[in-house]
């Protein structure tokens, strides 16, 4: 009932049946400090224009599609065209407007700044 089924599946392209890309979750590292939450995700082979990052109602969804440019007869193939997709729950206190992302060497680095109200504050005690 999963990708193992492919042996018995007729995978030819039929009008009503489209070939879906396999979906995997990218591996991620998540860090946090007082200012922001930082997420690093490995998405090798995904170009900048094929990545989407959505923050909506406490959910962060990252997804990216990889299209390999290949030619020639394959001798072996350990990876293929794929869709990376993963959904995270994020606190409502993320400042959505200031979220920014960079992509380098196949690693997506996502900065999720916290809203001012959510930042920790030190309360000074006055002597009366």
């Amino acid at each position: 009932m999963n990708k193992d089924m492919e042996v018995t599946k007729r995978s030819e392209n039929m009008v009503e049946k489209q070939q879906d890309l396999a979906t995997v979750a990218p591996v991620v590292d998540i860090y946090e400090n007082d200012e922001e939450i930082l997420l690093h995700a490995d998405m090798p082979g995904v170009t900048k224009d094929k990545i989407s990052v959505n923050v909506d109602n406490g959910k962060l969804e990252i997804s990216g599609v990889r299209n390999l440019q290949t030619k020639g007869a394959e001798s072996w193939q350990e990876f293929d065209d794929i869709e990376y997709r993963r959904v995270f729950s994020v606190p409502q206190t993320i400042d959505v407007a200031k979220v920014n992302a960079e992509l380098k060497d196949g690693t997506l680095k996502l900065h999720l700044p916290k809203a001012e109200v959510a930042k920790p504050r030190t309360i000074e005690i006055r002597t009366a």
Partner: protein
Amino acid sequence: MWTRMNEIDRMFSAMDLLRSINSDSSYGESSGWRVVGGFPKTNMYDNGDSFHVIAEVPGVSKENLNIRIQGNYLELSGTRKSDAPEGYKTHRVERNQSTFTRSFTLAADVDADKIQAVLKDGLLTLVLPKAESAKPKQITIN
């Protein structure tokens, strides 16, 4: 009969779809994506007069990658350094840092001087032209 099979197929793909939404299947976890030969994963293509090798090396910079070639022996090695930022508290670490080496015996000798290597978006692409003696030749019949 085929129509019925297609119905079943469709049912399965609907289930696949549901499954892919619900499960966070990572590399290696689900059966379809088991790591075959370790890190980095590679694809190899034969183009007649050259080999194309693609390797998945996310987060590895050019300086941390080594490619060695001798005759038909190819070796990829490198280090994946931690990119953990300073002064942050760690919630989750799934991307492991490691040193890796993988070697291959190619089906034919390659011309070491004409190899091209490109690192882009975490994919290393190597074009390895076969040595003159190993290239396919057209034989004309007299």
